[in-house]
């Protein structure tokens, strides 16, 4: 897939939607195309990582292991963006991502991503919005989980 097509795909990702094409082109150019066969890991929980992946095609499963073996927590497809937490703060991967089909990705390194944020404050705002949204979802989930626990008389 030539660079210009990748830029088109990037524009469809919510996070990058408001960014000028030239910047996205730089992001695409400084990023590597990586294809995964079915069953290959994009990342492993607990490992250090310095890249995020934009899924260009295919499906991947997100697996988390809280001690009782890996549990599938989500599934990501085309335009999905995984592994961004590791490049925002240096911490081990919080989940394993495994290719459910053949998966084609754009591997975005920490350096290119930070360069993008530096160039476009817009993306920083967008990123904050997405993170806030995630926090909200997590809080709602947590509250409902607590409700359930209370109802079950555990807490």
């Amino acid at each position, binding site marked *: 897939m030539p660079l210009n097509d990748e830029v088109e795909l990037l524009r469809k990702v919510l996070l990058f939607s408001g960014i000028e094409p030239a910047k996205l082109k730089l992001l695409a150019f400084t990023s590597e195309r*990586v294809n995964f066969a079915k069953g290959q890991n994009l990342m492993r929980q607990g490992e250090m990582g310095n890249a995020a992946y934009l899924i260009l095609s295919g499906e991947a499963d997100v697996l988390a292991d809280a001690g009782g073996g890996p549990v599938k927590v989500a599934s990501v497809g085309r335009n999905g963006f995984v592994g961004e937490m590791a490049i925002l703060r240096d911490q081990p991967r919080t989940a394993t991502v495994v290719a459910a089909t053949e998966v084609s990705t754009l591997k975005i390194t920490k350096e290119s991503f930070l360069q993008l944020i530096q160039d476009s404050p817009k993306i920083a705002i967008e990123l904050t919005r997405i993170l806030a949204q995630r926090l909200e979802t997590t809080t709602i989930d947590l509250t409902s989980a607590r409700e359930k626990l209370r109802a079950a008389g555990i807490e």
Partner: protein
Amino acid sequence: MNVTEQLKSFYYDKIILLLKSSHHAMDPSIFKYIWRYSRQSQLVVLALVLGSLPFYFLMLDLPRAIVNGPIQGKGFETSDATATFLSFSFAMPGFLQSLFGTAKSTIFEGFELAREPYLLALSCSLLLLVAVNGIFKLQINTLKGRMGERVLRRLRYQLFDRILRFPTAHVRKVRQAEVASMIKDEVEPLGGFIGDAFVQPAFLGGQAITALLFIMIQSFWLGLVAGAVVLAQAFIIPKLRRRILELGRQRQLVARHLAGRVGEVVEGALEIHAHDTSHYERAEITGRLGQIFRLRFEIYRRKFQVKFLNNTLAQVTPFIFYSVGGYFAIRGRMDIGQLVAALVAYKELPSPVKELIDWDQQRLDVQIKYESIITQFNPDGMIAPELQDPDADDDAPLTGMLNASRITLEDDAGVKLLDGVSFTFDVRSHVAITGPVGGGQDYLGLVLARLIFPNSGKLSIGGRDTALLPEAVTGRRISYAGSDSILFPRSVRENMLYGLMHRPLTPPVIIEEDPRQEAMERSEIRRSGNSRFDLRADWIDYAAAGAQGPYDIDNQIAAALDAVMMEEDVYQLGLRGCINPEDHPSLAENILQARKALLEMLRDPEYAALVAPFDPERYNHNATLSENLLFGTAVGTAFSTVNLIGNTYFQWVLEESGLTPELLRMGFAIAETMVELFADIAPGHPFFDQFSFIASDDLPDYQEIVHRAGRIALEQLPESDQRRLAALTLDYVEARHRLGLIDAALEQRVLTARRLFASRLPVTYRGAIEVYDPERYNSAATLLDNILFGRVVYGLAEAQSRIGVLIGEVVGQLNLRWEIFKIGLNFNVGGRGRFLSTIQRQKLALAKAILKRPDLLVVNDAISLLDVRSQQQILHNIKTYCDGRGVIWIGGQPNLGRNFDQVLVIEDGKIAEQGEFEQLSLNGKYLPQLLAVG
């Protein structure tokens, strides 16, 4: 021996060492120094100088004889008169007169010559005397030069020797650039002066006195005048020059600081960029340059003032000579011959006097330089030369108890880094020393390895005071690896062997030896007091590493590298190394076998997609355009990436295969994209290095070119623009850069060009390219590329590591790992090991320390950069490797102390507790705390 006796003998030994070392201090005066080391040669030259003076006098006297005799006709009043030439006679001393009955002894009667032949004879004699004086000068200068070079060589060697004896604390303080420049540049002028130190005043003074004496003989008054002017010059001028010298000394200091500062800036470049302080540094240097300017200009001004005065004085004398001398001649109190001779002699006078004054200035200058240098090389606590006696190793292993008693170490400010530390353990036991950061355990490590001497207290091993142990014992029987161990820019193997090179063990094998040259070298080494050891000898102490000789030392190196988990790294370095197949014919052959075996494996559909092999009939999308065109690796400069586009043969090939316009268009597309993408990126951003086809400095040029190309057809651009655009295409890899520039038609053209390039390659370029040939070893490519014979494809997850596994299998099947590992040992690690990762550097330094199998190994926070699991593994390996020999492990990871015989906890420079790990971790006071934190 009771305690007081022990103490007495301890201090007695120390005092003896001090006394011994004191007479090795350098002479404070450069004259004393020069005299000490070149007395004999100086005397020889002085004798020559003395011998030359009579001839000089004769040379001055001859003009008088010529003018008065044959020219003016004195003694030739009659036409047949003759003069006696070359008659040698001298007056007999009184007691001999009675013996021989004559007052005059004539050695040679001489020839009787007429007026013209006599003139000719006298003139020829003058010529002869000039030659004789010239030969004297030549001899004197040659001897002087050799003498000077010898003493300079000795001085440089001694300064270097002193660096090797600096106490560790001082070494850390000195600025490397300054010390290096002192040995290299600042002693240079001393070398020129050494030959002149004694000879020049004798030679010039002798000449000046002879000339003055001669003038006085001709006319007492003229002589007096000349003498007075010379004295005035000799007294006033140097006084004026004192100030210039003082300024010169200041200039030297300021310049040295400048050099040091520049060194700091280079070293701290990262820091400067990180904090945007480049302007501060510019201002700093500007200030220093200003200082130098002021000093230099002041020196310049004063110099020419002195010169003016000097010249004026020198010109006043001829005035007196002509007026007063002329008057005397007219009055007949002096004959013309005398006047001419006095004038000639006077003309000779200024140059010796001037040179003498110069010498005097140089003397002061050099003395100041010398003093300022030697004070830098005379720190307190220099290691006594006796401690570095190469033969002081008594072959007795360190055994018994290691006993530290009340060791106290202070820094320059008197802060106690170690405060009365006492402990005892068997030197063969394995001991861990730990404690909070800054507790002082790292200093204890340096003391234990005898790298720094404590201010007070005593460290003994088996009853021997380590302060008195020669380095031949401590440096061979104790080994030290610290966190900042330095690697030299040599191969991995040479770095490993560095710890075994204490002194030459077998004499050098010299092929085609020139015995005369050799003897001269030896004699010069002796005369300048340099090292008697031959660098070409085999210095490696194979036995210490448990090897028999050069042929099996690699096994021991491998074992040591294995213990620090670096064997794999070196193997990988080997894979990325190049070999000359003529030097390693069997390896090259085996690599070709490996290529075939890998090819076989790649037939498996699971792996087939991982490698894009080099196929003469196919365009390789994972290789650069230039690789696809050349279908080989460039050797030398003719076809290197930088020169390729300008190469006329290459241009012809492009033209013939119709690629010239294609590359131009491609180049323009790349330039356009790069200009667009990188326009806003700050110059020097790492992106330029990693991704851009255009360096940040060149970007504005290409912006212009792209701009120009927007208005006219590409073919109409200037030749140079076209070339610069085409050059961009050479590194283009379709699979990596994904600009969609290579289509099927272009591929066909490239393949045509590839064939054309190979078939018409001129003979002169045959050696400039190693063609990809499935059946041949490519000496310009790495071992890995030779096995792979293709490119790992871009864009497949884990392709590199999966290929790595396959290659590992192939290498294993063919038993090539050992050979490749040995190629890895040849890898040059670069200055301070910069071609290795920081972790590899630490591992290599530790491996170097264990290779010599020390009786006591001190590991001082030496692998701190590794993760805990690797540290544990290496620790385990080292303990096994050093079984039966002592290991002291110092580090901030207290739980690593688990497997040691003893644990020492250091806090605030004091021993907090000592004991077995199990016991301390349960009942101790400090260790449990440390364990809880760490």
